[in-house]
């Protein structure tokens, strides 16, 4: 172990674990990394304890890859701790960067979530209807669980973040690119996103040929033309409102983009941009003649929030379901 080795940490908050796997997805490159870096904290791969982390002096860690959003008090506590101990904190993956899929839970209240998960799912067996709470006593012993917060937040919504590597999970080449920049000491300005500057369409070879679309279809309802833009074929593809850098892998294999790279540089709310654009290009017959039908199509869309905010709900304008201050009609 040389003195020059960079101290690297990785942490997993509210996420599926795929991002940790993605780090391992560097394959043999990880060996190169280990030549130049030392892992000082990575619960998914190594046996470090929180106390070890707490014991480090501030700014001891050169770089922390933080994946997952902030869902629990524990997530927030460790995020703060890692922020203190790290020179550079990277929001790694869609959940850390925008809140990710777990962020869709923001469409329900905490109580609704617990009730659904512990009592309502078809596979749940919980005859007593027990719902975990932060503090409980068993055999005279007080047990504590990290608190489940009201909302999922992206890492940036909880602590200061230096860089973002988006993706679900981030593709290895972006991680490599970041590590290269780190080791060369050539990191860009704070707040940079390690991905493209444009949208997925920039990397997608499909061509938008029409002027508008006249219906919205689901992928299984279409015999997909491999050369034509999926949106042009009526399939909701988030590509136009999603940051590039992934190489358009999904649309290339007839799978519409779900938006995991988050919004492109100038967009702050990916979902709103997409629903706005979809409304702009939907046209039944001659412009202005099919208004009622168009409205029916738009208001009949299944799960608009789930479709347009798959990965970005917590960092969107509304952030999730809100309480209408007023009375319901």
């Amino acid at each position, binding site marked *: 172990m040389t003195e020059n080795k960079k101290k690297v940490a990785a942490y997993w908050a509210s996420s599926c674990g795929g991002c940790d796997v993605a780090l391992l997805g560097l394959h043999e490159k990880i060996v190169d990394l280990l030549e130049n870096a030392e892992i000082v904290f990575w619960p998914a791969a190594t046996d470090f304890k929180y106390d070890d982390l707490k014991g480090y002096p501030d700014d001891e860690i050169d770089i922390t890859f933080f994946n997952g959003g902030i869902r629990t008090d524990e997530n927030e506590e460790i995020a703060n701790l890692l922020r203190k101990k790290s020179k550079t904190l990277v929001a790694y993956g869609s959940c850390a960067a925008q809140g990710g899929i777990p962020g869709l839970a923001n469409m329900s209240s905490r109580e609704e979530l617990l009730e659904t998960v512990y009592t309502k799912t078809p596979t749940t067996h919980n005859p007593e209807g027990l719902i975990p709470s932060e503090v409980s006593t068993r055999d005279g012993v007080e047990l504590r669980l990290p608190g489940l917060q009201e909302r999922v937040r992206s890492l940036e919504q909880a602590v200061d973040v230096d860089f973002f590597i988006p993706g679900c999970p981030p593709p290895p080449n972006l991680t490599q690119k970041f590590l290269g920049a780190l080791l060369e000491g050539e990191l860009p300005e704070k707040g940079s996103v390690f991905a493209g*500057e*444009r*949208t*997925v*369409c*920039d990397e997608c070879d499909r*061509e*938008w040929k*029409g*002027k*508008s679309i006249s219906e919205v279809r689901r992928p299984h309802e279409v015999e997909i033309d491999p050369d034509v*833009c999926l*949106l042009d074929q009526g399939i909701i593809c988030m*590509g*136009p*409102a999603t940051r*590039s850098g992934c190489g358009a892998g999904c649309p290339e294999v007839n799978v519409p983009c779900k938006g995991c790279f988050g919004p*492109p*540089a*100038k*967009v702050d709310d990916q979902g709103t*941009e*997409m629903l*706005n*654009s979809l409304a*702009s*290009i939907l046209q039944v017959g*001659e412009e202005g*003649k099919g208004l009622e039908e168009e409205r029916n199509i738009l208001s009949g869309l299944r799960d608009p929030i789930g479709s347009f905010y798959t990965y970005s709900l917590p960092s969107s304008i509304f952030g999730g379901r809100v309480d209408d201050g007023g009375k319901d009609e």
Partner: protein
Amino acid sequence: MGSKPRVGVFVCHCGENIAGSVDVAKLAEEAVGLEDVVFATDYEYMCSDPGQNKIVEAVDEEGLNGVVVAACSPSMHEETFRNVVEDSGLNRYRCEIANIREQCSWVHRNGGTSPTSKALKIIKGAVQKVKRNIPLEPVEMDHSDKCLVIGGGVSGIQAALDVAEAGNEVILVEKEPTIGGHMAQLSETFPTLDCSQCILTPKMVQVSRHPDIELMTYSEVREVSGFVGNYRVTIEKKPTYVDPDACNLCGDCEDVCPVEVSDEFDEGLSTRKAIHIPFSQAVPSSYTLDEDACLGLNPLCCTECSDACDADAVNYDESSQFVEEEVGAIVVATGYDLYPKEEMGEYGAGSYQDVVDGLEFERMLSATGPTGGEVRRPSDGEVPNNVVFIQCSGSRDPENHNPYCSKICCMYTAKHAKLYKESVPDGNAYVFYIDIRAGGKEYEEFIQEVQEEERVLYLKGKVSKLEEVDGSLRVTGVDQTIGEKVEIDADLVVLAQSIIPSDRAEEVSKQLNLNLGPNGFYKEAHPKLRPVESIGGGVFFAGAGQAPKDIPDSVSQGSGAAAKAMDLLAKPTLSQDPQVVEIDEERCSGCGLCLGQCPYGALELNSRGIAEVNEILCEGCGTCVSGCPSNSLSLKNQTDEQVNEVIKAYVGD
């Protein structure tokens, strides 16, 4: 703003108009407290000379780089104050109007939340906007001085003559071997009964002789690129195989030609040779060899016409020529066709020889037509004694045919009936109609005259059925005035077939990026206020391609289109409001979603696959800006940031 914003706010009392319900002094006081506002004042009449001077002085003394005038609607004095700001040395877009009169002081005199607090919000919004405004200069562009007219019917002829008379070069493109259009086929014109050719052919000759009109007959526009002021047009000149300069119209070629085909000028009621001239006064006056009918342009098969031509005008080796032209304005006058009578299942679907359409009947009535002007029925050449005219044939029938009124049929049917009665005084003319629409100068008088003087029986009701019974045509209709069905055994039936757009309309609309309405007619920029302009600008409509029209309307619109074209061509440069769309080339991915959203076709993808805006075509509506999913488009001085900051100024605190 490059340097730090220094905004001045000028609150107008407008006498008591604003000051009567809004605390103007308080507004000025509060405005100074706003971020980036370094000066604020109120004055009785900001638009007066002393008021304007206050702005000029403050810009100078306070080093303002943004001005907000809180006064009346921008539609009143935005120009005034922008001029003042320009006079004071700033770019005119450094000025914003806060409308606190029409939309505040005048409408909130009593009750509700305070008009003063609303006025302050409006001012705050204007401050947020003006400090983000960028200086802009009008977009200027050179243009070609030529005008292209597509279609050589009477409307196109009129447009071409008017534009050329104004001193601009005109290229008149006509797909047929002669100009004249349908008007040249007509016998006489309603309501004056002028001989159609007599009034038209002098104009045709004028076209051919005009030094500034380049006439290209037997030609079609094949490709158009560019935009208003600068169109690049490729025109195909099809081979006529006859040199018009050499041809002396002796007609020897026609005499010897062994091929006879149906004559389209006579609507198929006569035949012509493969080498032919549409009619004797055709312009250009020259023969055309119809390559489809000719025995193959093969000297081994037949060289009769060439052999017979003493002038050596026939040349079998001619081929299509493609001519490229740059033009600034385009007049589209592609005209109309008749809805085919084959579509009229209820009227025999074209299977009865003695059921003719309006144009066929015109040829029968024409002195130069196949019957020399005598009405004779096609089947046996007999003079018909009972003639039934059916109006609205294919019109006003949304379910089976066309939904619209073809406008001219009431009049030409009356004319037909009159001319028939003049030709066959003992004959009976019956007209079936739904309504008589005679809304033109001296039209109603004409209709009444035909009914009264010519004793034409007008029956109110549509004919349901037409069938051949014992050698005549049994017409079954109704007369609603007596509420009874009527039958007529007719010798000849004339269908006033619906007017439809010429078959060229669709192609031309694609070439020029024009919109077609639901019935295939060109769609104008505004149905009432801009009836001859296309949405995109630079292309103007004349004649029946835009909607069914009679001759006076077609000629008027031809002149109207010419005036619009001349107006454009007369400008030294084309200039445009610079508040147009701008594209962030670093961000645009060329997804293409914006292209179809632009009503003006101002957006296209460039060779790098990135959207590019044509600032001349862009009208600055900003629809595409909001429709861009990556926010790569912005509207100058109405950016997302500006709107969002205005919103914050209104509701955020």
